[in-house]
């Protein structure tokens, strides 16, 4: 039997619209659906996972055990600046095992990592 397929990655949040707008701008996604459960955003190219932002009463209390890793289109530095202007925060820069990445927080403090771009990896 074939397995289940991933329909969406759901993020608990306080303000679905705030996060949906940030992540739409970060990933060039579009708002697909908004209802009483939350806001779904979708990759117009149909490649990436849908993201669903659902309201929960509790706030974030610990480092998330799941986080997204993103590949920037140009350079890590330029993308850190662009995402910061959209409402993200740069948390730390990490060098490890011959690689490097930037840990960032979205507008509700969810951790995500910005990896090296294709050209930075090959350069």
């Amino acid at each position, binding site marked *: 039997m074939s397995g*289940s*397929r991933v*329909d969406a990655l*759901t993020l608990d949040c306080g303000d679905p619209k705030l996060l949906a707008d940030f992540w739409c701008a970060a*990933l060039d996604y579009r708002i697909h659906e908004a209802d009483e459960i939350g806001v779904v955003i979708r990759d117009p190219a149909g*490649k990436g*996972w849908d993201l669903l932002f659902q309201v929960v009463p509790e706030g974030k209390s610990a480092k998330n*055990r*799941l986080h997204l890793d993103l590949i920037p289109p140009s350079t890590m530095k330029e993308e850190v600046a662009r995402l910061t202007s959209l409402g993200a925060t740069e948390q730390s820069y990490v060098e490890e095992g011959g690689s490097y990445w930037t840990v960032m927080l979205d507008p509700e403090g969810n951790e995500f990592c910005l990896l090296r771009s294709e050209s930075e990896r090959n350069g």
Partner: protein
Amino acid sequence: MRARGGASGLLTVSPSTIYCLTVDCADPERLASFWCEALGYERFETELQVEEIEIRDPAGRGGDLLFVPVPEGKAVKNRLHLDLIPPSTIGEEVERLRGLGATSAESFEEAGWRWTVMLDPEGNEFCVCARVDGSLGQP
């Protein structure tokens, strides 16, 4: 999204793309095996450190899953979780996933969806979902 630029007028600004969803865990081997079976994913050889395991959809859909060992255990409900559409009915898939090492908790129905909350072998929450009208998955 677009930004104004140069003599050509509008210039497309490329966005970031999702490479993977990283999962902090105690036992990458165990979780990678579970999620490969759950999703039909395959291990992907990388230059990563050996204790990290990356898996991906052989059909190339969505991002990869990367399991990374961390010293701390899970303390609270995860704020991110995966929603899965079963290949059969929710009930059949919940049984299959239980056989692979997941546990199931409550089932819900709201806003045209039915879903069962499950925990993977390290207690990470995920949902098996379908539209009540059968237009997506089989309730």
